[in-house]
């Protein structure tokens, strides 16, 4: 039950069940940052050479190191670094529909 692991949001009743000090134990992975995204990166398998440069530079990280890489759209903030850095133009940008 530590911040190493994904977990559910933590809700306190009040002072009584809070720790004595501001000691954070939950994982920020509760915070799905998908809503920050205004563009969506799309990996095109046919172009991808699995060089893993996108994985390497994703700041979240929101890319799994599979071959080809997989984007975790729950967290991808749409920064576009993967698009910019892919040496094979294998990632394109789509407007988020919202």
């Amino acid at each position, binding site marked *: 039950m530590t*911040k*190493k692991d*994904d977990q559910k949001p*933590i809700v*306190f009743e009040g002072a009584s069940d809070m*720790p004595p000090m*501001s*000691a*954070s*134990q*939950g*994982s*920020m*992975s*509760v*915070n*799905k*940052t998908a809503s*920050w995204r205004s563009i969506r990166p799309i990996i095109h398998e046919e172009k991808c050479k*699995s060089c*893993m440069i996108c*994985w*390497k*530079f994703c*700041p*979240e*990280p*929101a890319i*799994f*190191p*599979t*071959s*080809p890489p*997989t984007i*975790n759209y*729950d*967290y991808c*903030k*749409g*920064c*576009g*670094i993967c*698009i*910019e*850095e892919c040496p094979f133009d294998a990632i394109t940008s789509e407007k988020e529909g919202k």
Partner: protein
Amino acid sequence: MSAETKKVRLTLPENEVMSPGHLACQGCGASMAMRYALKALGRKTILSVPACCWAVIDGPFPYSAVGVPLQQSAFEAAAATASGITNALKSLGKDDITTLAWAGDGGTFDIGLQALSGAVERNENMIYVVYDNEAYMNTGIQRSSSTPHGAWTTTTPVKHYRKGQKKNIMEIIVAHHIPYCATANIAYPEDFIKKLQKAKSIKGAKFIHLFAPCPTGWKHGPDKTVKIARLATETNTFPIYEVENGVYKINKKIKNVKPVAEYLRAQGRFRHLPEDELEYIQSMVNKSYKRLEKLEAAFGESA
């Protein structure tokens, strides 16, 4: 993750100690930096983080984005807090844990310099990483002594843009004659990780000056973070070198050095600069790179 996808050879450790969901801006160089650092050092690491963007990026109570213990500290106290941590570990006989102080340029070049100087003078067993985004970003882009000549910030408005070279923190810390000092750049994570691993293997005080652009403060697209970081090194604005026991080594010697203008013009914070300023900046970059080469010549391996 679909089951049929297969694993590939990676140039960085695969483990992810930093979780997604953190509060960094899109394309934040500092968030990439932490990801690499924790890849390099693993879970047997304790972080000391002063006020800075990372104090927020880690997340609000009761959450955190790093899978290791983290102690927030007062803005000026990262190195002193880390001194306490590393001495406590020593005193309690825990010798397999790395103490990592992790601060911004403001917390390092300015308000935290004294604590840092004291800690490295005492040769405390810790790694200190400054992720340098060249201004106080957490409070909204005010000048630090790392802000480079010519840059706009909210306290160096366009009419009074920052004059003078940024403080040379590497030379200052090298002057403390500690076992290991190095520069690194988020554009070259393999190099950064190698240096952290080397630092981990050395006892005593280790210092890494890490270049980490901030799209919000530098006014460039979030997708350009790595590109601009790379340009800083490709133009010799931010050379990659290390000083091990006083021995200088430039780790990346750029063959085709690009003009600094290319680096500057990619960022909004330099937009107001007239041509002659660009030339001046180019001359200063040349000068300080020359200085570094001389240092390597005088104090390098072959010297």
